[in-house]
């Protein structure tokens, strides 16, 4: 008990003893203010659960998600052994949902890696170098920004061929421009600050300035934006899957599962309903988490 008290005191001290101490203390205070936001905590909880389910899928799933049982097709909710029923090939819907969590996480993680990094590169170079480089890069960004996202992704997938990786690529290609805009705006304000002039005088080159001094400061606003965009990414991926352009059968991707259940929606509603609920829950969780993160990391942007 006494030990935890001192931990708290150490974390909340107003006179940090080292730089790392100050950093940890700042993170802890951010966590405290985040923790008081119930909705954001619910979002975080759902996502932690999602990650857990995705990793432990083989342990949690009651059945093999690919094994067909044609004698037991379209079993309703609450059937013995199939709590969410079975689909048109007799596969257990719950098990497919559990394995589908892996695909969703995979897509989200890949897009969240590719798009912000691409945007960060374009935005910081554009903002730091300025001049005609800035003009050209921002013009390209504007063109992509002005493009309808889903239709562009459709056309890309058409060109590249259907599949998860290509869907990820298509979504990333349409998702990077807002990050570039944000990174550029941050760079422009940072570029003219005194400490950048100071390290310039010390002989730091552009590469060092961008990677060591500008990127770290862009990260927090990018993280907020990425979290808020996650829901959109999930919906886009599910939409592509639904159109048959994302994950291919028999993959238990949630959007593709809805598309399969669509054919008999009027008679066997649960086949399409369950994966839809899963998509909705996860993207809702990302939205809640994003709102909470924005309040902590970027208080200016809130209302």
């Amino acid at each position, binding site marked *: 008990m006494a030990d935890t008290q001192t931990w708290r005191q150490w974390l909340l001290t107003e006179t940090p003893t080292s730089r790392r101490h100050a950093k940890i203390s700042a993170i802890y205070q951010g966590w405290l203010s985040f923790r008081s936001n119930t909705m954001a905590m619910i979002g975080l909880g759902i996502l932690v659960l999602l990650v857990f389910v995705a990793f432990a899928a083989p342990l949690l799933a009651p059945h093999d998600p690919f094994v067909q049982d044609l004698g037991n097709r379209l079993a309703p909710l609450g059937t013995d052994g199939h709590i969410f029923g079975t689909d048109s090939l007799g596969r257990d819907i719950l098990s497919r949902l559990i394995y589908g969590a892996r695909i969703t996480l995979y897509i989200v993680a890949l897009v969240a890696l590719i798009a912000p990094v691409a945007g960060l590169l374009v935005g910081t170079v554009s903002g730091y170098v300025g001049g005609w480089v800035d003009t050209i890069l921002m013009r390209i960004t504007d063109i992509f920004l002005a*493009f*309808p996202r889903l239709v562009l992704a459709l056309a890309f997938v*058409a060109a590249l061929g259907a599949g998860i990786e290509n869907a990820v690529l298509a979504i990333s290609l349409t998702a990077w421009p807002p990050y570039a805009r944000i990174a550029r705006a941050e760079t422009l304000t940072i570029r003219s600050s005194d400490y950048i002039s100071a390290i310039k005088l010390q002989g730091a080159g552009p590469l060092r300035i961008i990677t060591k001094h500008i990127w770290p400061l862009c990260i927090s606003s990018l993280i907020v934006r990425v979290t808020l965009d996650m829901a959109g990414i999930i919906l886009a991926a599910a939409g592509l899957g639904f*159109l048959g352009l994302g994950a291919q059968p028999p993959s238990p991707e949630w959007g593709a599962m809805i598309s399969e259940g669509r054919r008999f929606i009027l008679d066997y509603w649960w086949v399409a309903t369950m994966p839809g609920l899963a998509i909705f829950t996860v993207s809702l969780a990302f939205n809640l988490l994003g709102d909470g993160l924005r309040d902590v990391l970027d208080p200016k942007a809130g209302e």
Partner: protein
Amino acid sequence: MSLTDDNNQRRPRRAPLSEKAWPLAKTSMLTLGSISVTLLGLLFITFIIGRVMPIDPVLAIVGERASQSTYDAVYQQLGLDKPLLVQFLYYLWDVLHLDFGTSLLNARPVSEDIARVFPATLELATLGIIFGVVLGVPLGVLAAVRKGSWIDQVARVLALVGYSMPIFWLGLMGLLVFYGILGWVGGPGRVGIFYVDVVPSVTGLILVDALLDGNWAVFKDAFSHIILPASLLGYFSLAYISRMTRSFMLEQLSAEYITTARVKGMSEWDVIWKHAFKNIRVQLITVIALSYANLLEGSVLTEIIFSWPGIGSYITTALLSADMNAVLGGTVVVGLIFILLNIFSDLLYKVFDPRAK
């Protein structure tokens, strides 16, 4: 426009005409330039997509059993032996003449097909945006005025759910409940099977055509078919519009002139609608234009769910049957409209909001 004139007249010395006209001319030149660059970029992207597609356009025309000489002839006829840049210029020339090639599926010009399917999308998206505005704007205003009250909470939850909901799934659920179980609305498609091609197509918008023809039965049937997808799209634009309206209104309501108006004893209704709301109109119109553009695009998935014969269904069907010209033609048209609406809302902002200068 009138605002700038007023300002100029109030100056002691009238500025010479050239000095006044120059900024306006410069702005419009810049805008025109940026429009053309954006459009060029759009066409360049679709061109590249068309070139890297794993479909041989020549084979698609001549078929697999054609002789080498036929193949070569068509290859040259399509200009595929020319450098890429020249091919791109050919492509630009064709698009400028609204020539998107012929569809591989039905051998008709793609532009004709698009002209045929586009009104269906337009009708759906327009009705959707009307729902979104009529319900979303008052909801946003109320949520701002009664900040923290139950209505604010309802607006917040509605928006949050809207942002998180897969539109195609909500459409399916809507069909299941309102068509399958309750039977309140018509099912998929634009009209029931007995009403197809009953009224002459004048505008392509079936509700308008039915009215022009005075055929109430068709109008009622078409309405029962469009109401569900349109309210669905309306809900998604409502989510966005109400949030934006709320934050615009909050910004105005915290301004000092509002306090002044209240101190003067002005009624709350006048404070809200005559002062605060009047000042957010321009911002609101840009938001509505953007969300209209999004609806035109967002209708792709909705159209599939409701078997709506619009441009979204057209592109997707073409995609699944590898009809390259149709996909690219559809993409260009949707992209064009999207860009033009974006620019329109930008311009509106610049023209009507004096602060934007």
